[in-house]
């Protein structure tokens, strides 16, 4: 019976891993994009330093762009950070508790996930308001006539990062609830 349990709902078995894999690829792919942005950030700033010393003038927009890139790096990687459980937490109690009481541990984890969903939801809603305002008012960075960039694409990327992070929390909540209801599964793979 226990062995059968591992392959419960055989008709879903073929479909869900594919979706799960695609989701994982999306989340980690965005994270990879964020990692590439770190390299880009390094190159942009080095180029700025070089241009300042060789040509005597800084590149335009580097500090504004650098600041926006930092925000992008964070929100692009938010979901993958959640997925790989890399949000900093204190391990005084939690992992020991989960090991001893898998079901209660999962319930506690589910509460944390809910808190995460709530907070990301609040921030995403507020960001949505900012995004509509940005588009309406044609907000941009830089100096008019020299070089400008509209802010809404950055805002939209931030919002997308939040939404995907929120969905990742929802997936984890569902996983935790499954453990709470069905007990710990043996398929640890």
């Amino acid at each position, binding site marked *: 019976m226990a062995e059968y349990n591992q392959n419960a709902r055989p008709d879903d078995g073929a479909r869900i891993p594919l979706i799960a894999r695609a989701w994982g690829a999306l989340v980690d792919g965005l994270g990879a994009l964020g990692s590439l942005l770190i390299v880009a950030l390094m190159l942009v700033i*080095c180029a700025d330093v070089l241009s300042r010393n060789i040509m005597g003038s800084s590149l335009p927009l580097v500090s504004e762009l650098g*600041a926006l890139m930092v925000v992008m790096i964070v929100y692009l990687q938010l979901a993958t950070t959640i997925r790989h459980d890399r949000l900093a937490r204190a391990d005084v109690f939690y992992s020991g508790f989960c090991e001893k009481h898998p079901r209660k541990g999962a319930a506690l984890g589910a509460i*944390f996930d809910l808190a995460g969903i709530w907070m990301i939801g*609040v921030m995403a809603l507020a960001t949505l308001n*900012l995004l509509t305002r940005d588009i309406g008012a044609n907000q941009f960075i830089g100096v008019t006539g020299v070089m400008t960039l509209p802010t809404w694409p950055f805002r939209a990327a931030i919002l997308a990062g939040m939404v995907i992070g929120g969905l990742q929390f929802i997936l984890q909540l569902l996983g935790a609830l499954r453990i709470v209801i069905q007990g710990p599964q043996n398929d640890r793979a």
Partner: protein
Amino acid sequence: MTGLEIGLLAIALLIGLIILGMPIAIGMLIVSFGGVTLLRNDTVAMSMAGAVANDSLREYLYAVVPLFVLMGLLVTISGVGKDTFDVFQHLMRRVRAGLGVATVFANAVFASITGVSIASASVFSRVAVPEMLRHGYRKEFATGVVAGSSVLGMLIPPSLLMIVYAVLAEESVGRMFLAGILPGILLALVFSVTIVLLATFRRDFVFEPLATSSEIERLSGFQMAGKFVPILALMGLVLGGLYSGFFNPTEAGAVGAAGALIIALARRSLDPRSFWSLLVETGQITVSVLILIMAATFFSRMLAMSGLPREVADLFLSGPLGPYGFLLVFVVLVIMLGCIIDSISIMLILLPIALPVASAAEFDLIWFGVITVIAVEIGLLTPPFGLSVYTIKSAMNDPDLKVGQIFRGAFPFVLAMLFTLVIIIAFPSIATWLARG
């Protein structure tokens, strides 16, 4: 409820949630959101959350975090740590317990090209510990030295903790970096003296009973130069650039990371796969730090709104405790929290309250920052959750080595840190001289 009560409740709730294991950033966001809702209303809380999420990280300065993390991981993978150790091993070959002293100085130098204690702890537990064991040092002592000296990483610039402090205290990152140099050197000296004293008066703590001291390999001048030049070049680039004002901290991070990348490529220690996983790791460390900073911005705005920091300042400064009483309470609190949570989180929770008090007490905030960082670092070495100690345990991968042994080995260094802390409190100019000069 008064603002004061709401502030206190939020802090108590936050600490409770953190101990239960909620991700710290989520905990901070939720108590801050709840706090502002109670203090004002949910519309205000909502718009504050949006502002914090979108704008608090939009600072050119924060680019230093991924850049210095990248630089630190690159020098770690390129084997620079081992070279530094080789050089100091050679230089210290005539000193009593010279390998221990060499570990301290190698850590101090390595610290000047990485910003994370944990990187130093994992590098030197692989490089220095086996060498010390081979020369008859006890395992407890060898791992204790590595744990103790790894804290230099956060004091000697570049340092992640200094960056976080500078952000919270609105001090310049460059100045905070400079402020860490002399205290870092002082701490390295105190550690070395501790080691030599232990080797003289408590020989059984340092060496195995039947230790036979074997010859230490000699290096030719040419070999020394080959090992040391890349490190000195990076140090010169980053510290020299910062000190002369040639680079701002963000630029120093970018140039340092590029330099470290060139060194790693030149030594062929990078293949596409390891470079990629290093980038992913950089990203994850960056995000977990910056998300914490974002959440802490909300938290400190909520606390300021509650009026709690002002009340705490009044309590300490007009009461019998006075400024130095406050400093004592603060240091003790930091060390106690260090037993439960990580360094950055401690600073993010305590500093929104402590900084207004410190500036009301007319403390030099650079000096206060150095004290905070040392106190926070003591927590890395104390049971039950000293992070450095656990890093060493997992890097060593030795089932016979108990965590308790490392804690015992690190204990003399905890005392040495307390001693250094007292000296810096007594002589603030050690911290402020370079920074204000």
